[in-house]
Structures are given as C-alpha cells and as structure tokens.
C-alpha cells in the first residue's frame, strides 16, 4: 500500500496537519503536501477514470505532466473541474472529487468500454454509427457525449466568485524555470546588470536537483539552492516569482506568466490568478525534462508510476507509493529511485533493466551494493492487477514476452529516459533536433524563434537543452545566462560555472516497446496516452491505414490531445509511428507545440474585464438623469443612449408613442451629445471637405449650416451630418454617434497619408459639449423663456447657427431639424450639461416638455422621409440609391467615392431605390421584410425586388409607415407589392413618397 513514512518529506511542515476530503471521506495531510502526495499518503491510489475506456487511473507523475490525477474541487462559484492533483497544493478544508465515472470511482459502469476495447480501436467511430442517418444526432452522439468529457460543468447559475488581473512587466532577461539551471542562468545574466525575472511554476525553487542529489561547489544541491536564492533575492535587478508558470511564448518576446496567487489559500484576499504579460528582450527556458514512461502491457494500472515521481514522493513528501516497488528502466537514472526507496526502508525486489548486461556504472554498483537484484536485458511482459498493481511478469527484452518469472509488488517505477521540455522554445517557431544519445528532441540552437529584429530571442538552459549531468547543466546555464544578457545589450560579467559532481552514468538504450517483439495482445495493452486511452496498437493501426503524417496519426488516434497535451506520450507515440513506417524518428517529426504549457484559467485570460468593467460604457453628462428618469437603454457603439423614458404603468412601446406625439405637439428634448463634432481648420479646410463630402462645402457661408454626405472611397455612404461654417478657415462637422471616432480617424488618415501637404488641422471635440435638441412647436417659446438670444425667424434662420447666451449659459445654437419640427440644437460645455438640461426641463414644464429617446427620434425622422445611417444604409448603399442626388455635387471633379460610383454596377438601373411604403390596412410592415417578384432564380430562390429598410407605427399619422429600397421604385408610385412575413402572412404595401409628414416642409421654417 501507499503510505506516509515516518521520516523524510523535505517540503512538509509536519507540525501543521491539514484536513481535507476526497469523495466525501475526510483525510489528513500536512502543509507542504500536494493533493497527490496527500492522497497517496492515505493509500488512495485510484484517483480517476480514463477518457475512453474508463480504465482505473492512479497518479503516474509528480508534476505538471500528470495525465491521470484529475479531480474537481470547490463548490458554487468556486467549483472547478479537471484540477491536477500533482500541482494542487493542499490546504485546510480542501474538498476534491474524482471524475468521469458513474455511479462511483470504484464501480464505474463506463468500464464496460474497457471490456469492449477490441471493438473500439483508434478511429472506430469514423467507421460506424453511419446508419441510420438520424441515429447520429439522436442516439449515438448523445451517448458518446455523455461518456466523454472529464469533469462536470460548472453550474450556469454560479458566477465565478474569484477575481483575476493582468500585469504588464518588462525585463531584459526572463528565466522560466527555478531549478538549478534557471537560478544559475539568472545569476549569470543578472551579474551584467540586466533586469531579470525568474518564474517557477511550483511553490519551490530547486527543481529536480534537490531530490536527485549530487554536490555543487562542495555543497549539497539543497544548500546550493538556498545560497543562490539568497544571492538573487538580494539583487535589486532580480525578481523571483514562484507559483508562476511560463504559459506561452509569443511573437516579439511576449511571454505569458500564469501566477496562481491563492489556489493554495482560497480564503486569502485579492485576485486568484494574475496573468503576467511579460515583454522580455531575451527569454531563457530552463524548464527541465520530463521522464518518459515505458510501453509494456498493463503500464496504465494504478501503481505504475514514473520512477522520478516515486522518488519525489519519497524525498519531498515522505510518501511511499508502495511497499514493494519493482523498478523498470532503460537508463541509470531510475536506479536513483531504487536507492532512495531502499534508504527509506522500502523493498525493491528487482530492477528490470532493458539494457544488455555490461559494465556496472556508479549507480548500478550502488544499487547492487544495497542488495537490490538487478536483471539486465529484461523487461516487463505484463503488469498484474486491476485497480492497482499486484505484481509483474518478467520477460527477456529481446523476446516476444514469454514469462520468465513473476514478481509480486504493489508499485512499479518505470523510466524510459528523459525528454527535454521544449514546449516554450517551440511555441513561437523554435526548431528541434534529434539527439541520438538521449533518444529525444532538443532545441536546435541554430534555429531559434525570431524576434522583431530577426534575432533569436529564446535560449534554453540545462536539462531543457538536453544536458543530463549536473555539471553540464550548470555550465550550460552559466553560458546561457551570460549570452542572454549580452543579447539583451548588456556586458556580461565573468561568472564561473559552479563545479558539480554527480554519478557517471551508463548510456541509455532507446526502448519504445517492451519486450521488443511484443505481440498484438501485449501491444493492445501497452498504453501511450493514459488519459485518452491510446495504445501502441492504435498508433500502429493508424500507420497501417495510411495516417502516416504525424498530425494524421495524432488526430486519428487522439494521441497527445488530452489535457496533458502529450507530455508523457508524444515521443513514445512518435517512435512507434516511425517504427511502423520504417523511418527514423526525426523524419517523422513532431506535432506543433501550442500554448499554453499547461491549461490556464479562462478567468485569468479575461482579467479584470468582467461585470461593470467588462467593456467601457460611455456616458453623456446627463447619463445619471436619464437613468433616474426611466431610461430604457440602447447600446450605440460603446455609448448608452435612452431608447425611451418609460413612465410607471407604461410599456416601452407606450413610452415611444407618447414621446413621439408629444414632440410633434409640444416640446421634446433629446440628449444629442453623442453626435460627433469635429473641428476642421486651415486655409485648405474647404478644399478638404469638398473631397470628403459629396456636397460642395467650400461655398458654405459663415454662419450657415449644410447637410452633408460622406462616402467611402469604394462609393458607399458611410456617414452624414450637418456642417457649420464657423469662420473663413473653420468648419464644425457633425457626424453620427458611431461616426465620431471613425470619421475623425478617416479625416486624419486622408490628411496624413494622401494630402499631407494640405494645410488643415482637425480636432475631435465631440465630448466638449453637451448637446440638446430642443424640438417641437414650442421649442422657440422654451428657449425664449430662458432668454438671452433673439430666436425670431428673422434673426435666426433655418440652417443657421449662432453663439450666444441662453438662461445664463454660453451656448452655440444650431437651427437644424432632423424631425421636421421647429428645432434647435444647443451645445453647452459638458460640465454644464446637466444644469442646462435642468433649466430646459424647468422652463418647459408649462409647455409640456418631455425628454425623448432614440426610437422616437427614428420615428420622427421616418415620418419626414429622412434617411438614417445604419437603417437605410448598410454598407452597400450609395447616395444615388436614396434619392440624394441633390446632395451630390455635379461641379466637383473629384470626391471620395466618385470614381467608385462610376462603375458598371453602381450606375445600373437594376439598383433598388428608396421609396415610402404604406400598408393598405394601415398595419406596420415587418422590419427587414423583402418584396417578391415573379418566380425563382437559377438557384431556386424566390426573386426579390425590394426590402423594408425602416418600419414604424406612426402615432401622429396613426398608421404604419415604412421606407424601403425597391427595384425601379420611384417609377412605380402607387403600385402594390408583396412582402412575405416570417409569420406566414403576406403583407401588401403601396409604393409612395417617403415623405409622410409635412411634405411642404413648413413646420421647421416657422
């Protein structure tokens, strides 16, 4: 059984016991435990079920490469599935549940799949569930979906109870990995004065060396780490962050650091995760190496673990993974596990070494000296056991698996050699080279990821670079640190590599299958990908069926596509594929490494952007008043504008109708502050506006206003608004709400990139003003009540503007109308907007004043046949379609869009043109409906001859009114056309003039 040992556990604080629960059972652990070590200490070897076959799964690793030990934790707004037990630090009260089983972890109905695994080889689902057709959606897929997936989904009703944030950090050298290589590289880089950040994904510095032993500068690795850490911490130019993983390396030296601030202490204040956006001149990845499993039958049974993991649990956590551990290996490193177990007083019945007999290296000799039986040239034929290991059958590695001996044991420590962690090097295009001696891919220093200047910006130190001995790792790290500092523009200081001593090891023997001649039965039980249940036989089947590209094989078998992204399985799978194809491994190549290194929370990616600050809400100066007075908000770009002001007892529609009638009959106020206002000034301002607008603006008289249209260079109408000439050289251009920034940008673009020799300056002054449209027959009365300006028709004509004073406010008043009523738009400085609004409401009280919203605005303009950008236009409409030829200057030789409007399709008489539409029965046409013509087109679609662009119920006309674009529309006045609704009804409408209200235009001119 697995248990807590009386001694050992360098990371534990045994004075602080912690209570936690697993599947409802309360268990004990210590501060410093991971959930994995604590579970093992309580003999909880079975931790989950695999994805496809629901096989029993126990922890196989001790770090972030773990594919099996996944649990769900937390409750309510803190629930989270798929938490890796090996990277979860234990805390008081932790509640974990195992996943992907029913009804329980021990008795899982889904395990039936394992019995049927013969019928479920790689890609079986592509070959079946084809008939009958409807069964996929209704039968097969629901069953498959239910069986698939790992953890439960968080509840829809629970919002994430934690917060997250981002942080921008800049440094010269970023070191990812806080093992001895990372620390030494950081020291070498920092000596130059370079600003260095060290990121370590676990809570502890030192990495593997502190477990594996060896001496550095005459000290233990542990003492070396303590000393160098203190040294680095004392330096002003060095920052060390633990619990921060280098998640991804991106273009131009951008690196994501995923800092888990309180996963280990959920009750702490502050954000849960912080996503660092680090921009580093140079990044060193000192990310170490990951041990590979060996592929033998039954290598997935709980209790079969990586040799290094078993060693970690003993040394770091004082936990034995079993009383009797058989070690199986193709290299010397696993002997360290055997020795560590022996030192801990545990039994190691045998070391099964696939390498042929030969000279004993230091470690082999030490193991033998401890009395451990070493069986060279042997392998495991199969592991016995179900929910945990009970023994192993031994065979000759060279044979086909004839059992020579059975050895009872309750744990198996396996080692297939080590693979450098090259993920971060590869994320942004770093290339790999095959290292024969270690049988692994390592970074090719000649083909690094390239930065903004074409320079390599990532280098690799230590075991991640393919180094295997402590001495070489530290020497490599020292060089790497110095070189990185130099590349970042610093002068490297002479830094001596520490002198390290460790065991001299015998060469590894690549072993991709155990035994090498294993037959189908063994191969179909030899797991490559533990989580996704991909076995040696599956990869071989993929090759047999022509999925010979590594990407094909991966996708066909799902190898490496589980939540560990193939950290344990990729190289083993590649080797099997290469062997099947009779080609060397480097020719097969690797799949692409994609960020993140291990999964990172969606919450951290979103950062602060949630709730109130999910996106900016732009507010006008009168926002609070609107809010307090019943505004039903409409998002318009980032602005919020009142759609209508709903009074008690009203529906939104009621409110709109009331506002619309009142504005025509009495007095309406509209907050028009969001409309864009752009100052255009300079000797060439008139010439410039002539190019921007379809109209002639240069002839506009000072004091006057003119309605203008703007088209894109591609000819389409993009914006409209009133232009006022302020003085000889200055114009103020109004834009739509959405147009303020885009039209300002449009102007700057043309001024900077095409007509840069023209003397024009523009400034966006939209927000300088609160602007109120004072609209209705009583508008003049209201403003006169404020007093201060002569507003008579003679003194202040239609389409004029004046600066003046109203009610003590300095104002700029425009006598313009988008409603067809007598109307003034009054601009005051934004900080006086609310006061001015209040003053208008006060003087309007006796005049029937009511504020109105955007929907009323729409109806008022539609009653007048005024087009609305975004309603009558949609990016495909030119002014000519809208009967706006009067606003297109014939005199100008050029304006933006003019050439485009000369193209064949733009001058075609087949273009749909603007008309008014009236239903016969006064009902309202469905918005967006299309009118049909005769028959169908070549693709069998009904022929369409027009569409509704705006449709409203007009309370003033007491009928539905609509505008639309219709083929030959203006020539078909009085004709009735049919608009099929989506409700199954046909709507008939008569083609009429779009001006429904006050066609003579007398109202605004009083």
């Amino acid at each position, binding site marked *: 059984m697995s248990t807590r040992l009386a001694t050992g556990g360098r990371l534990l604080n045994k004075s602080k016991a912690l209570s936690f629960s697993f599947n409802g059972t309360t268990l004990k652990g210590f501060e410093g435990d991971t959930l994995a070590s604590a579970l093992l200490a309580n003999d909880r070897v079975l931790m989950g079920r695999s994805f496809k076959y629901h096989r029993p799964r126990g922890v196989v690793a001790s770090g972030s490469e773990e594919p099996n030990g996944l649990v769900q934790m937390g409750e309510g707004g803190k629930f989270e599935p798929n938490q890796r037990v090996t990277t979860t630090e234990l805390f008081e009260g932790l509640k974990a549940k195992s996943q992907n089983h029913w009804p329980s972890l021990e008795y899982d109905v889904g395990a039936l799949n394992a019995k049927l695994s013969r019928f479920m080889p790689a890609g079986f689902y592509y070959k079946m569930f084809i008939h009958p057709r409807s069964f996929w959606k209704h039968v097969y897929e629901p069953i498959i979906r239910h069986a698939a997936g790992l953890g439960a989904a968080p509840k829809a009703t629970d919002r994430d109870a934690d917060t997250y*944030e981002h*942080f921008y950090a*800049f440094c010269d050298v970023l070191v990812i990995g806080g093992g001895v290589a990372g620390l030494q590289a950081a020291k070498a880089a920092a000596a130059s004065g370079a600003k260095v950040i060290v990121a370590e994904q676990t809570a502890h510095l030192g990495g593997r060396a502190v477990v594996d032993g060896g001496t550095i500068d005459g000290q233990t690795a542990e003492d070396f780490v303590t000393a160098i850490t203190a040294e680095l911490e004392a330096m002003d130019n060095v920052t060390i962050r633990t619990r921060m993983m280098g998640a991804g390396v991106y273009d131009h030296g951008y690196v994501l650091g995923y800092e888990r601030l309180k996963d280990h202490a959920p009750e*702490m204040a502050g*954000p849960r995760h912080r996503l660092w956006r680090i921009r580093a001149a140079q990044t060193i990845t000192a990310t170490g190496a990951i041990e590979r499993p060996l592929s033998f039958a039954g290598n997935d049974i709980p209790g079969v673990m990586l040799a290094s993991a078993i060693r970690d649990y003993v040394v770091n956590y004082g936990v034995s993974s079993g009383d009797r551990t058989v070690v199986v290996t193709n290299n010397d490193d696993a002997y360290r596990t055997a020795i560590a177990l022996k030192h801990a007083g545990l039994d190691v019945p045998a070391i099964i070494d696939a390498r042929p007999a030969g000279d004993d290296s230091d470690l082999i000799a030490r193991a033998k000296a401890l009395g451990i039986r070493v069986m060279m040239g042997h392998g495991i034929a199969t592991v016995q056991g179900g929910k945990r290991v009970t023994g192993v059958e031994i065979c000759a590695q060279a044979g086909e698996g004839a059992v020579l001996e059975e050895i009872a044991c309750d744990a198996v420590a396996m080692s297939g050699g080590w693979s450098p962690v090259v993920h971060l090097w590869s994320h942004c295009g770093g290339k790999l080279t095959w290292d024969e001696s270690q049988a692994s891919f390592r970074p090719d220093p000649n083909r690094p990821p390239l930065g903004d200047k074409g320079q390599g910006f990532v280098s690799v130190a230590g075991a991640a670079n393919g180094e295997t001995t402590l001495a070489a790792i530290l020497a490599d790290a020292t060089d790497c640190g110095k070189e990185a500092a130099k590349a970042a523009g610093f002068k490297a200081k002479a830094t001596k590599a520490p002198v390290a001593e460790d065991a001299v090891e015998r060469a590894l023997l690549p072993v991709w299958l155990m035994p090498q001649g294993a037959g189908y039965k063994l191969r179909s039980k030899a797991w490559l990908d533990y989580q996704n249940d991909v076995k040696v036989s599956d990869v071989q089947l993929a090759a047999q069926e022509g999925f010979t590209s590594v990407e094909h094989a991966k996708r066909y078998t799902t190898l490496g596509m589980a939540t560990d992204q193939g950290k344990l399985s990729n190289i083993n799978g590649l080797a099997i594929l290469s062997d099947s194809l009779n080609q060397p491994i480097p020719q097969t190549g690797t799949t692409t490494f994609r960020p993140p290194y291990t999964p990172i929370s969606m919450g951290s990616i979103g950062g602060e*952007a949630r709730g109130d600050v999910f996106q900016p809400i732009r507010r006008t100066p009168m926002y609070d008043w609107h809010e307090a007075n019943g505004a039903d908000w409409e998002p318009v770009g980032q602005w919020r504008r009142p759609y209508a002001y709903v009074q008690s007892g009203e529906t939104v529609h009621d409110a709109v109708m009331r506002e619309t009638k009142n504005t025509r009959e009495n007095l309406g106020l509209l907050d028009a502050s969001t409309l864009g206002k752009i*100052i255009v000034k300079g000797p060439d301002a008139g010439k410039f506006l002539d190019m921007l607008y379809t109209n002639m603006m240069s002839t506009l008289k000072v004091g006057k206003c003119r309605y203008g249209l703007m088209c894109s260079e591609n000819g389409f109408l993009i914006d409209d608004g009133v232009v006022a000439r302020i003085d000889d050289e200055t114009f103020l251009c109004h834009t739509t709400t959405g147009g303020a920034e885009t039209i300002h940008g449009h102007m700057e673009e043309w001024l900077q990139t095409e007509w840069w020799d023209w003397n024009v300056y*523009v400034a966006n002054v939209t927000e300088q003003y609160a602007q109120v449209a004072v609209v209705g027959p009583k508008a003049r009365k209201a403003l006169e009540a404020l007093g201060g300006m002569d507003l008579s028709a003679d003194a202040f004509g239609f389409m004029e503007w004046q600066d003046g004073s109203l009610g003590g406010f300095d104002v700029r008043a425009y006598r313009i109308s988008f409603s067809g009523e007598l109307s003034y738009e009054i601009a005051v*400085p934004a900080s006086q907007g609310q*006061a001015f609004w209040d003053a208008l409401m006060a003087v309007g009280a006796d005049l029937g004043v009511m504020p109105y919203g955007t929907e009323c605005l729409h109806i008022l303009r539609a009653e007048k046949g005024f087009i609305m950008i975004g309603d009558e236009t949609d990016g495909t409409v030119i002014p000519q379609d809208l009967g706006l030829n009067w606003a297109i200057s014939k005199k100008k030789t050029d304006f933006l869009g003019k050439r485009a409007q000369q193209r064949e399709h733009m001058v075609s008489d087949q273009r749909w043109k603007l008309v008014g539409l009236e239903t016969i029965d006064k009902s309202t046409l469905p918005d967006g409906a299309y009118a049909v013509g005769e028959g169908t087109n070549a693709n069998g679609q009904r022929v369409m001859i027009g569409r509704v662009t705006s449709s409203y119920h007009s309370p003033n006309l007491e009928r539905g009114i609509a505008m639309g674009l219709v083929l030959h529309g203006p020539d078909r006045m009085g004709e009735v056309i049919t608009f099929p609704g989506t409700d199954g009804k046909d709507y008939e409408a008569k083609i009429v003039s779009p001006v429904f209200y006050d066609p003579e235009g007398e109202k605004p001119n009083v």
Partner: protein
Amino acid sequence: MSNLISALDKATDNSGIAKIEEIGLQGMITLRGDLSKAAVKKAATSVTGVEMPTLGHANHDGASGLCWMSTDELLVLCPYDQVADTLAKMHTALGKAHALAVDVSDARASLRVSGPNAREVMAKLAPVDLSPEAFKPGMFRRTRMAQVAAAFWMVDDATFQIVCFRSNAQYVFDLLKVAAQNGSEVGFFK
C-alpha cells in the same frame, strides 16, 4: 458658475491598495500646429510659463503645463477658469500662423492614482514599462488603459495623473478600483 460638474464630481476611493480620485475640472487646450514655429512656441509657452516639452515629456507648473501629444500637437494645461483668457492670448500670439487651438477641458476627465502601489495599479492596465527606471516624473505617455485611450504623467514618484475622455471617466475609475483591490499588491517594482 456653480453648476459646473466634472465627470465624476470629484469621486474618490481609498478602499484598496492605492488612492483613486477624480480631481475635478482642469483647463485643457488642444494646440495643433508646427511645433518648430516661433509663433506656435510662443503661444504655448507664454500662457503657461513653462518651456516647450520635448518628445514624450510634459512640463508642469501647478495647474499650468504643456504636454507633448504628437509631432504637431500639444496639450496646454491651465486653470479651468482661465481657459477663455488663455485661448484668447494664444490666438493673439499665433497671429496668422496656421494652427488650431481649441478648448477641450470639458471633453476630458482627470484622475489621480497615488500611494506606494500606484505604479503597480497602473501597470495592471497600461501596456507600458512603469518601472521607476523606465517611467519618471516629467515623462508623458499616451497609451491605452484596458480598453480605452488614455494619457498620463507622474506628478511625483508616487502619483499618476491620468487624462481620459469624459465619457469614459466612470470606466477608468472603476478599472482603477478593481486594479487596486485589496490583497492585489504585486511587489514587482523595487
């Protein structure tokens, strides 16, 4: 006028790891022109009493100052109640030079973040190196804060002054509050 209201009416928040305030109305004038021309320089310096700022910098004297906005643009700071006078003086100084000077005081909001953690709070929102060696009082930076454009400078080593669009003031204030939430010290800037 007594009815002047700045974007957030001088809201403050001191509940987190830095103090956040909207500081009320600040006079601001956009000046666009050829910054090498004597008339433009004079218009800027004569009304503020500070020297022309170099690229990426701002010169200040209390509520008056000049911020380098772009190759042909300065932000002229002056007391809010002196904007009209200042503009008039600038127009006189500019004479016939081709330039644009326009009041934008009400188009903007001014916020401050202060305290020992001010740099960290800002560094959560702006993609700028805000370490003490990289960003110092006297510098001026136009950039973005989370999802909106903003500009800022340091009044002293522990205080940022931020200018954003008035309509975004509440968003920026709320952002800063989130970024300054308790327990969120980073400890990166030494």
